[in-house]
């Protein structure tokens, strides 16, 4: 079926982003060009019902849809909540403890009670198998097939649902892993079986073990979830293609998602960054930071020279005791500050905010749901940045007095501040903490945050974006349309994508280009086959090549994008120059005279989907219409050191070209944008709020 067709039956493209608190639906009507949105509480036990409700709220029906794009926290929550399958691990003899041993450093160096990461597969279910490859992929010990069968029988007897396989050096030669998997599937088709080389072809046995174990652990549950969801939406009339968002921001087919569940860990946040990239493309912006602030965290990703910046892996469950997952994904950094973050007066006069969050329940004090700890949202309310009668379009009345009392007693008094100083202090502390994470994603790569625009979304993003931008020296902030649904909207503009990595240690000067091209070719063939499987009519396939490179003697490699043209002429000097440039940008120096080596080859294969165009809004003139101006209230601005009468505008009534000078508040259903004195807002043709930050 082609999505380009616009028969009334299948003219709708739907996306569903299921988060911890809310399920967001976005629908794009290809016939009318209209974007429809729905937001509803997530229904943990019956997720399909939540999607159904959201779709109804968006005024849409499944039977009109040709495409359902889905992002979900089911995989990551299965790990964080430890609700996955009972699994076994088959591993090379002599190494069953590597999963437990890990990398042996203590992230909390001064904690004498430090406890390590907790493996997802218990030691008694990690079976050693006689087999061995060397680093060149040559067989030293043949796979003992009988032992594989015995181990699987023992694992079955212990009640496992899934089996992970990791053999040393399988990134170089996966023959033994493949054979073991085949043996298990032959005898036990009911088991979920996953082998490390299918997920990662990079060296580092602990990280690969952790990746394949995590896939086995979430596999049965995610597979059931996806099958169940597809059946349920099928019953409700959906007959189109069902695609899942991966952590790399690309889509993949649900059949593939069931095999590589671990690729969808961060699907919601990744979709937000993809949405930000599409926004950049639509207005010709090359450099932007995607800033997503919700109830408990703020996240930042980067678009640099038109590309989303990626990373080779991350830790699930935090820095100290997290479990590594070694797959390519969008590089998203996170800090524990959101609207619900709790403020505390610390010992010796310090003011701390987060990472504890009041969450949705009991929530901030002003929600009146039993929360007693003052939060960032309470501070915003006290300062007038949020309106007590206007939250969620007035659906939810906020308790201003409650917020004031809590801030007075828990923060202002202990610190000897007045109420306004206390509330402003909280905002300023979260602003700095978020500024660090925003700055971090750029400076870590040698980029200067000040050269980027800040695209802010998530429920709390627009409230804080201007302060964060000013703190870092960013001159331009963009608030997209529907910032509270932005991840769902981002899914609508995602492409199919597969990422591959192959470890290949070679000095650049003597690297065999024939072999190099063969390796890229293999990854590209796999990727192309994979994106074609989805049956979607694609506008094209784009191949991108990268190499992880370093100077001979260095350990850490940097990922360098290599234009295809460099390979046509086997241009070693060109590749070296690209690497020198990237190294200089990232670390402040390069060594053009020194030799470089290749560590890994990376390939990204994108199947380009037809995309909904961003909808243009009605053209106005510089002056907002009278319907847009809905009142005013006093708002505290630190620039003025006082409360300032601040006009309030309704976002839905703004037109393209409207200009508003700060201070001002722009209110919409799920979010409020704060414009500070001296800053200037202009609404662009697509309805984005473009804010120019005055240089302070």
């Amino acid at each position, binding site marked *: 079926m082609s999505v380009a067709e616009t028969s009334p039956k299948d003219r709708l493209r739907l996306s569903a982003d299921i988060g911890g608190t809310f399920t967001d639906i976005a629908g794009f009507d290809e016939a009318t060009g209209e974007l429809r949105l729905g937001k509803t509480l997530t229904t943990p036990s019956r997720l399909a019902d939540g999607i159904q409700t959201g779709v109804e709220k968006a005024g849409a029906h499944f039977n009109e849809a040709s495409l359902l794009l889905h992002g979900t926290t089911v995989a990551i929550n299965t790990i964080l909540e430890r609700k996955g399958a009972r699994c076994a691990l088959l591993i090379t003899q*002599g190494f069953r403890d590597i999963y437990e041993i890990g990398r042996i450093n203590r992230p909390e160096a001064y904690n004498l009670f430090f406890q390590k990461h907790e493996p997802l597969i218990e030691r008694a279910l990690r079976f050693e198998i006689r087999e061995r490859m060397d680093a060149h992929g040559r067989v030293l010990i043949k796979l003992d097939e009988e032992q594989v069968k015995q181990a699987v029988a023992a694992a079955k007897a212990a009640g496992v649902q899934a089996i992970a396989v990791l053999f040393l050096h399988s990134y170089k030669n996966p023959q033994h892993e493949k054979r073991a998997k085949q043996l298990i599937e032959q005898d036990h088709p009911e088991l979920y079986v996953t082998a490390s080389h299918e997920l990662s072809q990079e060296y580092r046995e602990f990280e690969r073990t952790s990746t394949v174990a995590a896939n086995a652990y979430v596999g049965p549950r995610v597979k059931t979830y996806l099958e169940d969801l597809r059946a349920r939406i099928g019953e409700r009339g959906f007959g189109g293609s069902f695609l899942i968002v991966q952590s790399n921001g690309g889509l993949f087919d649900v059949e593939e998602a069931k095999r590589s569940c671990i690729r969808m860990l961060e699907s919601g946040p990744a979709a937000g960054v993809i949405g930000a990239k599409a926004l950049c493309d639509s207005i010709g912006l090359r450099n932007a930071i995607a800033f997503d602030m919700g109830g408990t965290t703020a996240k930042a990703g980067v678009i640099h020279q038109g590309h989303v910046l990626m990373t080779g892996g991350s830790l699930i469950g935090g820095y100290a005791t997290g479990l590594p997952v070694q797959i390519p994904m969008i590089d998203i950094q996170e800090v524990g500050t959101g609207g619900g973050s709790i403020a505390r007066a610390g010992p010796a006069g310090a003011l701390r905010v987060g990472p504890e969050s009041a969450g949705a329940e009991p929530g901030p004090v002003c929600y009146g749901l039993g929360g007693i700890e003052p939060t960032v949202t309470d501070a915003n309310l006290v300062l007038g940045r949020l309106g007590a009668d206007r939250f969620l379009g007035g659906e939810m009345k906020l308790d201003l007095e409650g917020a004031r009392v809590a801030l007075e007693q828990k923060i202002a008094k202990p610190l000897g501040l007045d109420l306004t100083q206390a509330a402003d202090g909280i905002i300023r502390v979260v602003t700095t903490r978020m500024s660090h994470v925003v700055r971090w994603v750029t400076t870590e790569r040698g980029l200067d945050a000040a050269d980027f625009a800040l695209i802010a979304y998530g429920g709390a993003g627009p409230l804080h974006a201007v302060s964060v931008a000013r703190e870092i020296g960013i001159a331009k902030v963009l608030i997209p349309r529907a910032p509270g649904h932005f991840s769902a909207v981002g899914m609508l503009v995602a492409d199919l994508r597969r990422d591959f990595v192959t470890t290949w240690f070679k000095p650049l000067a003597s690297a065999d280009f024939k072999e190099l091209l063969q390796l890229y070719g293999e990854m590209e063939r796999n990727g192309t086959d994979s994106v074609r499987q989805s049956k979607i009519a694609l506008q094209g396939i784009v191949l991108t090549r990268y190499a992880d490179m370093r100077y001979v003697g260095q350990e850490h490699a940097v990922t360098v994008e290599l234009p295809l043209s460099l390979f046509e002429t086997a241009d070693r000097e060109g590749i070296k120059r690209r690497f020198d440039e990237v190294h200089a940008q990232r670390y402040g120096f390069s060594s053009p005279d020194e030799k470089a080596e290749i560590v890994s080859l990376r390939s990204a294969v994108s199947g380009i989907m037809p995309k909904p165009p961003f909808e243009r809004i009605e053209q106005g003139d510089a002056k907002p219409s009278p319907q847009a101006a809905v009142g005013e209230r006093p708002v505290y601005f630190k620039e003025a050191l006082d409360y300032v009468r601040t006009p309030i505008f309704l976002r839905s009534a703004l037109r393209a070209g409207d200009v508003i000078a700060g201070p001002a508040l722009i209110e919409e259903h799920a979010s409020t944008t704060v414009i500070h004195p001296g800053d200037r807002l202009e609404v662009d043709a697509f309805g984005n709020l473009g804010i120019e930050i005055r240089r302070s």
Partner: protein
Amino acid sequence: MDQPLRPTLDSYRLEILSNALTALTEEIQITLLRSAYSQVVKEAQDASCAIFTADARIVAQPVVIPGHLGSMKFMLVEVLKEISAETLAPGDVLISNDPYRGGSHLPDIALFRPIFFDGRHVGFAGCIVHYTDVGGMVPGSNPQRATELYQEGLVIPPSKLYEAGRPNVTLQGIIRANVRDPDIFFGDLRAQEAALLKGEQRVCDLVRRYGADEVCQAMDGLIAHTAAQAKAAIRAIPNGVFEFVDFMDHDGIDLTRPIRVQVRIEIQDEKLKLDFTGTEQQVKGPLNAPLAKTWTTVFYCLRCILPDDIAFNDGLTGVLDIYVPEGTLLNPRHPAPVNARSVTVNRIADAVLGALAKAVPEKVGAQVCGVPTGVSFGGIDPRTNRSFVFYESYGGGMGGTMHGDGADGLSTGTSNAMNIPVEAIEIDYPIRIARYELVPDSGGSGQYRGGLGLLREYEMLAEDASINVRGDRTVYAPQGVAGGHDGSRAAYFLEGADGDKRPIPSKFSDRIRRGQRLLVVTAGGGGYGDPQGRDRTKILADLAEGMITPDRAREDYGFDASSEAQRQRKTA
């Protein structure tokens, strides 16, 4: 400026600027760690960055390796004794590695850059890196048989590496002529220079935004804040005197003579007074630790008993009085060799924490494995016919504590190195790892048991190579506390291709031939509390997971696995 300047910074401005100073130091540190060349930096992250006030007090130092805490402070103070602060200019870079002028051992080279803004000297950026080789009698500059500093490598006294941006080519030439792999050496040096430049830029960004007065006040404020927190925490501990004595196996030369480390800690109001009288006289071999190492180790121990949210900076200095008699192991006289001081440093930590365990038993548990076991091989890789130098160090069990079991298989004490992936070793070196395992029964039994030690088995694939093991705890086991048993001792073996296996001492240098295997078994942590008090479900879990054997369960815990299973079957 957003607000009129106040005589003291209010609480959130302090929080904001302290966050900013800490974050920028972390940023330059990551830059350094990622771009450095040294093997030791690459895998062990043996490098550190700090920001200092203009009068050489540490403001912020994010630390991966606890042994680096405060290490640069003493070097900067000594450097400024030789090169007066008044003579510094923008673009200067200072360098030193002298163990007898605030340093640690010769491979640890510190660089400092004065930070100027509009002609005003607002502070220093500094960083220290462990270099792979700084010359001397063996590759890696860690000769176990050294008897003088001169044999350990090139001593770089406090000097200007750059003067107002101009490189000191004479000094660079001397270095180039004295180190074994100048390309790698200067690669690391460039990484250090780049990190310092970045540090200067970031501090200047901050000054541009908040003003020099305010940034300098924030630096003072941070130090004062830490000092206040530290004093409050010490005051909360009852006054008293606590002593501890511990031993190292030997100095690698006289294998029969244990080496004593002794400390007496007096807690008096808000002060910790440490007296190391009774510690062994300085030794002939390289176990001696320069005086600064005692300070950095005590910083580490102090930091372990302070609240989690305390920032490390010069504010900790004020609560400490340290006395180490001159001419002893911990305050040797020039030119005693010092390259193996990391074993000694961990024994200092064991002794100090051992004494503190008596003062604050809720904060400190049983002893940890007690040494970062260093293994190195050097020779010719038959695959490439090039020379190779392999080095790694790894840990063992943590001690059981009042709050739970000690963690299994970790870098412990002042070391915090990562292990090198097995696949990476086999790609890069003519070495095969045959096994990498936890050692059952190695954790000391207790109500909360000690963590398990590690076993790693190396097979040499090169024809003939050097082998160097630097370990300890083969004679004196990590001690249990409050009735907990000791952890198991470390053991090291060489096994011939014919299967003949012989134990080797904990400090060992020799040759290893193709097909021979080195087996390293590290110590387990000590146990906490009477084993009889251990929760039965934990014993069962340990048995099911193979962390202890049925014999151990019966002997130490009086737990009969088979009758327990029978009993369970009956009740089920």
